[in-house]
């Protein structure tokens, strides 16, 4: 049996910490959430030597142990609690060479906690180009630690990092800061009251509102020494602590680091002058968005056609070759088309995640935050809301999770509430199939009209999110204090491996999560569609067969249509038809809307199931939909009804998972309930208006 140790990866955001994690663990990763909160928890497996392996925890990026967000709280609560099941045997602090000073601040804090610490200096391949030279031995001596130089771009240094982790027993412990330098009286008295505790831990308990062993803030407060004075006093001490730490770091760097500033950041600055320009910056951002949406539309067409026809022929094959009793029929007519409805999203989701992760990897996303803050503040949002709003175009769930970086609660709550308006990838298949049906495939001013409509729908989603935010800002009465500090990392060439892993993980979790719901609903639908309450369902052949002068194909179509009408599902659709007829929908679309209240993407799958039930034609779903007619012979899918349906999907809150995550993030059922009611109402009214006008 080999031994397993626990390693915590800690570091500032944008240091390449996740790249180090990816290189250490490869694809042996597991992502989940910390219990009770929605901070993403990433852990992976790494083999260090023959006898020794490690569980590596990629902790959320943090600037210091003075927490200002949920993410940072997770880090400090773990590191303060030796009894925590994930408490690390060794901490690996990842720093990047260009921001080494600031990165070392966190390092000194972790070291003062008394946790064995290794320092990783990443992006060492940039040192020469940036005119930086580092005396590693001198720095190791000054910081009393082990240092590993890595380059995640060139995959260098990972083996020596593994060796250092394996030898973590040899790390020495010493404190970087003497707290008596900050305020002798205060800290001496604190230490006197709790002689057996580390002074830094006590200090963190006082300033950070976390529990540590059996001491919490209140027990410190109840002691004689008046150790929790005014916040203003404590903040002054924190500032002095920070200054002392920087003095220590400056001393270390003076001896070990040399920078030839001349060669430094000229190119970066020129790039920033353009990308954050008060006019061109916005033009460039808009062009990038336009490119992304055009690419999603143009690139995903071919793989989607392939997937579509593959599932159709699979279903056909199963129908002809499997015996005709319940289970095989369920597979051929319920499960396979249902699965097809999940798999068909993969191309678009993957393409979108490729773009989003490239924008984040390059550092451009922070520039967007800078550019958009002023605009978004007018609507009660923050520049930081850009990331959730853009990620919302992939999926509202990670997007809502991403709002935890917004320190201001009011801005955060508003962002959470309006993010579901942005066009998530589950709406995409609905839009794609409807656009293909009702919008002509022509070019307007050189751009594909269908692509333009798609972009219009995305802009509509953003517009609605902003309008919603504006209203909420006026309605919500919450105290708010602004704290807006955004780091602008240096521009970097994205590491393809990181992009690949991000796309793989996100797509996988989406397909698995959505897939379960879609599959379950597909099966339920098929059962409901192939059984009916009255005897006329079973007698369909006989009843329709009485009609004269039909060709065999016509007869078969009539029979299947009659059966669907008489099935349980048909009854549900008919029941709600009066409510949705003013929007231009028939009872079949009604069925699809009902079933997609759990998850939007079920819409296409439902239609696939409905139109596939009982027919043996090889038509794909789209052609089948184009052939649909009302009782009076007019086509069901016209420009008016198609647009109305798209508008309905643009605004309606049809995603159980999103409601669940909102409940978790806001810790109340009030907000998701409001979201569900208000959004559905808006959707109904807007769709009604659209259909009546067109």
């Amino acid at each position, binding site marked *: 049996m080999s031994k397993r140790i626990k390693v915590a990866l800690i570091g500032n955001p944008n240091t390449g910490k996740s790249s180090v994690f990816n290189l250490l663990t490869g694809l042996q990763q597991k992502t989940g959430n910390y219990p009770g909160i929605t901070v993403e928890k990433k852990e992976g497996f790494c083999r260090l030597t023959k006898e020794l392996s490690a569980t590596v925890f990629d902790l959320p990026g943090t*600037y*210091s142990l003075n927490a200002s967000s949920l993410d940072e709280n997770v880090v400090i609560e773990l590191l303060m609690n030796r009894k925590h099941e994930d408490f690390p045997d060794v901490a690996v602090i990842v720093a990047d060479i260009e921001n080494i000073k600031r990165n070392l601040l966190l390092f000194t804090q972790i070291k003062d906690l008394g946790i064995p610490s290794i320092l990783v200096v990443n992006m060492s391949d940039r040192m020469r180009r940036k005119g930086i030279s580092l005396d590693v031995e001198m720095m190791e001596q000054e910081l009393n630690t082990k240092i590993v130089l890595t380059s995640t771009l060139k995959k260098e240094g990972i083996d020596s990092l593994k060796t250092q982790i394996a030898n973590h027993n040899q790390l020495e412990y010493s404190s970087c800061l003497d707290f008596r330098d900050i305020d002798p009286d205060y800290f001496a008295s604190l230490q006197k009251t709790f002689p057996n505790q580390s002074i830094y831990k006590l200090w963190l308990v006082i300033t950070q509102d976390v529990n540590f062993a059996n001491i919490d803030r209140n027990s410190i407060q109840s002691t004689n020494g008046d150790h929790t004075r005014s916040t*203003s006093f404590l903040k002054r001490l924190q500032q002095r602590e920070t200054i002392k730490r920087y003095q220590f770091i400056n001393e270390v760097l003076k001896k070990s680091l040399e920078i030839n500033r001349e060669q430094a950041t000229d190119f970066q600055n020129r790039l920033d002058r353009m990308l954050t320009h008060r006019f061109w910056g916005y033009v460039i951002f808009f062009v990038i968005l336009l490119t992304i949406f055009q690419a999603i539309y143009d690139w995903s067409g071919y793989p989607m056609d392939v997937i579509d026809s593959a599932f159709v022929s699979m279903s056909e094959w199963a129908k002809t070759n499997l015996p005709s009793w319940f289970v095989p029929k369920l597979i051929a007519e319920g499960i396979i088309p249902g699965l097809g409805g999940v798999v068909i999203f993969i191309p678009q989701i993957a393409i979108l995640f490729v773009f989003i992760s490239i924008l984040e990897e390059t550092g451009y996303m922070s520039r967007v935050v800078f*550019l958009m*803050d002023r605009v978004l503040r007018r609507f009660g949002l923050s520049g930081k809301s850009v990331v959730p709003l853009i990620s919302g175009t992939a999926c509202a769930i990670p997007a809502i999770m991403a709002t935890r970086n917004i320190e201001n609660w009011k801005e955060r709550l508003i962002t959470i509430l309006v993010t579901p308006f942005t066009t998530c990838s589950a709406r995409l298949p609905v839009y794609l199939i409807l656009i293909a049906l009702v919008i002509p495939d022509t070019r307007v001013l050189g751009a594909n009209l269908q692509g333009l409509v798609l972009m219009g729908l995305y802009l509509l989603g953003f517009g609605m999110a902003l309008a919603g935010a504006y209203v909420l800002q006026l309605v919500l009465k919450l105290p708010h204090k602004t704290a807006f*500090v955004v780091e602008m990392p240096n521009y970097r060439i994205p590491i393809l491996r990181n992009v690949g892993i991000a796309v793989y993980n996100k797509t996988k979790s989406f397909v698995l999560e959505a897939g379960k719901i879609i599959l379950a609903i597909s099966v339920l639908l098929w059962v409901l569609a192939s059984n009916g309450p009255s005897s006329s369902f079973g007698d369909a052949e006989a009843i329709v067969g009485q009609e004269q002068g039909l060709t065999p194909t016509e007869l078969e179509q009539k029979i299947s249509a009659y059966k669907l009408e008489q099935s349980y599902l048909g009854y549900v659709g008919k029941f709600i038809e009066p409510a949705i007829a003013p929007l231009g929908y028939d009872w079949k679309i009604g069925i699809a809307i009902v079933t997609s209240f759990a998850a939007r993407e079920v819409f296409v799958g439902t239609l696939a199931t409905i139109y596939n039930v009982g027919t043996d034609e090889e038509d794909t779903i789209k052609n089948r939909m184009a052939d649909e007619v009302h009782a009076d012979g007019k086509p069901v899918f016209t420009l008016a009804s198609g647009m109305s349906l798209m508008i309905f999907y643009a605004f309606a809150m049809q995603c159980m998972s999103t409601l669940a995550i909102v409940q978790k993030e806001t810790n109340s059922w009030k907000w998701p309930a409001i979201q569900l009611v208000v959004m559905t109402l808006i959707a109904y009214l807007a769709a009604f208006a659209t259909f009546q006008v067109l």
Partner: protein
Amino acid sequence: MTLAQLNKGEKAIIEDLNTDLVPLKLIEMGCLPGNQIELLQLAPFKGPLFLNVNGAQVAIRKETAEHIQVKRTTE
């Protein structure tokens, strides 16, 4: 003068700041008295300030900048 009054492209030395109103995170990024600060870019309509503080690049809002006293060093 305060940081908010600095023009684009100008450099200054931080003289003093109000610890109650300036987020600790900014202080930890090196926004401390004595350090150099440069205003790299301004977002339109009194938007955020894009700064180089002590080698770190950060964006902050104008109302935070108003609580940081600086001395201009470029003429």
